[in-house]
């Protein structure tokens, strides 16, 4: 069983309008490469020139922000749900 990835609207042009993608990956870093293989161009949108995750995009594994886990090295197991969510939302 693969990892389920929820794709936000701004990236769905790169996923053929798919809101959910199944991926094989053992960490968030691997997930980025695996996504790139399936949807070319997507990694450049999620990472800056140095390869770090952009500061305005948040990743959650089973609803937990990866910054509270192990960041890009956060391990993934089959059945996990990864949400990619623009950071800019909410509050006032």
């Amino acid at each position, binding site marked *: 069983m693969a990892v389920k990835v929820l794709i936000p609207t701004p990236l769905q042009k790169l996923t053929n309008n798919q809101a959910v993608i199944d991926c094989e990956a053992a960490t968030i870093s691997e997930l980025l490469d695996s996504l790139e293989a399936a949807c070319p161009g997507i990694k450049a949108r999620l990472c800056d020139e140095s390869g770090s995750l952009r500061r*305005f995009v948040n990743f959650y594994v089973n609803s937990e922000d990866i910054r509270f886990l192990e960041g890009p090295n956060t391990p993934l197991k089959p059945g996990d749900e990864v949400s990619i969510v623009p950071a800019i939302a909410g509050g*006032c």
Partner: protein
Amino acid sequence: MSTAAAPAPLTTLARVRHLRCRECGAEYEPVAKHVCELCFGPLEVGYDYEFLRQTVTRESIQGGPLSMWRYRAFLPVESPQPIDLGTGLTPLVRAERLGRRLGLKRLYIKNDAVNMPTLSFKDRVVSVALTRARELGFTTVSCASTGNLANSTAAIAAHAGLECYIFIPADLEAGKVLGSLIYNPTVMAVEGNYDQVNRLCSEVADRYGWGFVNINLRPYYAEGSKTLAYEVAEQLGWQLPDQIVAPLASGSLFTKIYKGFQEFVKVGLVAERPVRFFGAQAQGCAPIAQAWAAGRDFVTPVKPNTIAKSIAIGNPADGIYALDIARKTQGEIQAVSDAEIIAGIKLLAETEGIFTETAGGTTVAVLKQLAEQGKLDPEATTVVYITGNGLKTQEAVQAHVGHPLRIQPQIASFEGALERARTLERLDWQEVAI
């Protein structure tokens, strides 16, 4: 209700140029979109300031409605009849007693605890968001809220006849839950903290196509906070204050007060003047204050644990911009404990007759801390933004206020109680004196 004698030609095309990414500068049509497709940066409304400079005057503003809509030219809507429940134009109170207590000679309270219709500054942002939502064709609106925004969205949606879904953390204060339910929206109480509610709503917004005031309508919504700057400038006799203190949750309010002052300077309505920006957070959720103290220009998220629920955002969207503004205006960002927040609520109530909620307690407590540290110029015009009403968060202070003296309907019973009360008061004073 007064109206402008000769309405300026206020079409969106004339004034609102575009949505523009604050990070990479990419431009978009003014639709329901809040993040840049290229870099995920926040989108901001860009205006034609030259047009505004030529068409807006102090007189044209003063001739407008007695609400925030007198500043309609600076707001991203095109409707000739925006949704107006008398929101804004709240009192700017000269706070002499609190000022004396803190050693500040020209202290003012911008009192949005009495903003209409739901007693918090959120009515400003929601009025703009729902006016724009209607223009963009939405019939269902929604929000992720810590309570005040829920109240406001539910009320103003009811007034506008829009279907409404509210998402809140399940542990909110009872007054804030009731204060939404009364308008009969569908309320989802999410078992999680605000940041989790927010993430869920981002996903719901994607899937359902509703108008979420603080997600896909956020560029418009956030602009409503600028009216807190415009009003203060107008109420001070068309000039800017020297220093302001405001609460920080996502940091958006702070950045929009800054933008509002800048815009008034840019179009020639007020003279340029440096305004120092001071931000207030609760220690139990102080990601921006922690970044400030550590000298960082990025914000590490935290898990909130504070009574100041209305500002308990552990993952603040505009945190980095708030840091930037505090830095470039020679301001500061500080945090206070829950005990200090309660003391702040009581201090404002006892000195100024204004009952604020926990966010206001946080702001007053930080004001006091800054004054005691000598960080504020005591001679300068200082404005403190009080953004919400204490009647909504009674749980926070319930155990910290006195109780009524229960007496019989007889003069002897009254006099006995009065004597006891006066003795207690004397003891209190002795304690203070010690």
